[in-house]
């Protein structure tokens, strides 16, 4: 079949035995209000396994034991691939870069005065990093996603709430208190001084989160996914609600662009990952800014936070050995 000569008298195998790779594992966890998603990768970054469980709430912080157990279970299953070298846990809260403290939901009952990383390290054979979950999704975009070749990326999650992660030249920009990206607090809208103290979540978030979208359509009880579905099927009222949402969102995004000028903005979350939403937002941006802005929906899906945790763990390992 081939027209290449099949007569190939080997001189000798040019390279002898097959090469070997280093052994070691990294765990990444995305701790959410309703579920915990854990993943395990080898040092090549290949995802070996994932595990998902409902989040354990209640007194005594059972979620701590849960996270440790999930990580150890995954690591044990793949112990032939080496020891666990690093774990990174994403949490839905700002994490102070100086103290490591995070303001997590009271339902989790995690002691607020102790860094979560230290509490988890007590049960694990490796160092632990705790990071804001949206920051981790941004890190995933910067290393695996559409911003792989970009010097800077802003990842903005629109869903139950709104949040942002910034990666600039390979580094997460957290801010002094770890609050960089608390986008929901942007004082957007009329008369913000009076409105902010009464805000449900934050002035911007009140305009673009899921409750806000639901409130724009009929009696406010239709789920966001259903509103998008109906808009796609020609429901004019649903389409108008999405258009209003996109217009509001574009104001926040234009503010980010004006302040940080990222090479790319990637939108994620239940609302932000919808291409039709991204297209509408992009259209509105053109009247707010005198230059073109590149906005894309995420390609990483709901595992972005966990994948970002794995990549940050691998990055931390690289940096440690490089130092």
């Amino acid at each position, binding site marked *: 079949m081939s027209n290449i000569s099949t007569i190939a008298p080997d001189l000798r195998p040019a390279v002898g035995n097959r090469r070997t790779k280093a052994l070691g594992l990294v765990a990444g966890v995305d701790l959410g209000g309703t579920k915990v998603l854990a993943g395990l990768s080898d040092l090549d970054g290949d995802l070996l396994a994932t595990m998902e469980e409902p989040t354990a709430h209640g007194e005594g912080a059972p979620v701590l034991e849960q996270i440790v157990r999930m990580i150890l279970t995954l690591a044990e299953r793949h112990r032939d691939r080496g020891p666990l070298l690093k774990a990174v846990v994403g949490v839905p809260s700002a994490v102070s870069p100086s103290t490591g403290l995070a303001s997590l939901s009271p339902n989790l009952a995690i002691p607020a005065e102790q860094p979560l990383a230290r509490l988890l390290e007590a049960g694990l054979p490796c160092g632990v990093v705790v990071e804001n979950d949206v920051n981790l999704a941004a890190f995933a975009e910067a290393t695996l996603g559409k911003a792989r070749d970009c010097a800077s990326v802003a990842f903005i999650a629109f869903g139950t709430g709104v949040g942002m992660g910034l990666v600039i030249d390979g580094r997460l920009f957290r801010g002094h208190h770890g609050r960089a990206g608390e986008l929901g607090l942007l004082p957007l809208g009329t008369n913000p001084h009076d409105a902010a103290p009464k805000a449900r979540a934050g002035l911007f978030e009140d305009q673009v989160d899921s409750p806000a979208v639901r409130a724009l359509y009929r009696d406010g009880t239709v789920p966001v996914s259903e509103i998008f579905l109906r808009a796609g099927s020609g429901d004019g009222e649903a389409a108008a609600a999405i258009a209003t949402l996109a217009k509001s969102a574009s104001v926040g995004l234009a503010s980010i662009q004006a302040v940080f000028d990222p090479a790319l903005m990637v939108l994620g979350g239940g609302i932000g990952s919808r291409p039709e939403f991204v297209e509408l937002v992009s259209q509105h941006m053109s009247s707010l800014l005198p230059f073109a802005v590149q906005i894309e929906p995420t390609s990483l899906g709901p595992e972005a936070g966990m994948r970002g945790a794995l990549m940050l763990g691998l990055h931390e390992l*690289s940096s440690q050995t490089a130092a």
Partner: protein
Amino acid sequence: MTKPRPKPRVLSPLADGQLVSEKPVLLPFMAPRLQGDCWPDGKIEISVWGCGKIANLTFSGWRGPFTYAPNRIETSGGGLYVAQSAPVLFLKGAKLRTLVPSRRCAWWGSTMKREPVERLGERRIARTGWGVAIAEQRPAGIFLSAGASIEEATRALDLAQEDVIAEANAYVARCDEMPEASPLMRSMVSQSLHAALSSIRQDEHGDFGGLAAGQAYSAPARTYYRDGYWTLQALLARTPDAIRSQIELLARGIQPDGEAPSGVILTGPAQAEEWEKVRRSHPQIKEEHLRPGDWWSDHFDSPLFFILTIGDYIRSTGDNSPLSAHWGKVVAILDRYCALDTAGNGLPVKPAHDRDWADNVYRHGYVSYDIGLWVGALDVIAAYGGAIDENIAAKAAATAKKARASIDDVLLQASGTYADYGTKQDFVEDHLTLDSLTLLRYRAVSAESATRVLAKVASTLESRSNSDQPYGDWGVMCAFPPFKRPKDTRSKSAFAYRYHNGSDWPYLSGLYAEQRLVHGLEDAEYPLLRWWETCLEEGWMGAVEYFSPPWGRGSLLQGWSSMPAMAALAHKDKLCLAMS
């Protein structure tokens, strides 16, 4: 930490130099006009040089195992065959499912409304504002052609099925230049040489259209000084006419003051118009691309590669005409770099910017890589310029002598290697880099120094010997340890072991292998083949641009990743001796 763990291969090399996989693997292909990606489970993205992305086609009918060769896939009852003489390919045994025209020519292009696909019997025509694709279902499979115009695409369909297959098979045979080698070496040489041969592009009139940096570096169509230089190393003896034409294209980008961009843009008319809109409006692009024909203006190494290209061409062919034709530009470049010699030691000082090969690193001061190129360029002027202007040639010779005498003083480290960049008065990044081997290639340092450096490269940059890096045995790092001053790095290179910060770049691994062979050292096989083993393990079909664990890979089918094939073929006798 390091224990044996062989990774299973997705692709296996066969004795005839082809590769086989059970599961479908992406095959990038590139012919003089046509290029694209083929997923053997039923999808093709098709582009045309100078036009951009034209259409996506989906098909059914193939089953594994899949056997791969340059620009060719064969399965039981089917296969992909790409013609050379016309922009057409044949999908044997395939049934056409969909043909969808692209909405934009490239990521930076405006999004256009799709025109409806025209159907004429078994023929479907997809039109865009920048090119046309035609798919035709025939009894034996699908013919897919594309072009800048309907005429070009229609004309390509005139090629008979057996002619397309014959041209595809002849191309595979042309790439197979080391049939006596082991399957691993033979397949590496075939695929690596393919990267160079396929980089020779044509415009719609059949004229030379530049050396493409790679299949993913084609919109806007452009040719780079540095990528082109390393790519043409494998082409000098094989296609000298293309090199002569390449020099003419590169000459267009040289400015009166000796400056040159990273690359020269070579788009067709429709893409040129679209690109110019972006060049003038995109916030980042308009800052980097200062003139209409520039791809990223003012790169420090580009003018030097222009002179080196001329020198290599003369050395290979004996034809002195490009130097005479472009003597004014050569002198302008000489003057430009002499003016950067602030210490009077014959060495130009690079400004602190990110514009040379390491374009994610702000290197400044004395840069080993650039100084190697500088000395090589001076030698070209000294060797061949005398017939045109004796004084200039003498000046170049004197400057080269002074430069050689100064290098150790400014760059040599206690370890016996040469620093990456910096000045002693300010900051020196003293880690070891593969790109500093330009000092060896252009004999800017002594043979003794070269041997010492190569020994250090083996123990430091070959990952199998370096247990201070975390990933075991995976390739040849382009730098180690990672950059010590984070503010000097940006974007991908800000991550340790990623991109310029330690990835394996097969073109640099090829340069390293070449220097081992030139200096009579054994074990060039590791840099020649370790990267290729990774491609086989990961299922990366084609000569990859760069890679590192865990950061993944760059583009496939990258022109300058032909350097390993060039080194292996140019020193085959030594390799044979080493292997016997």
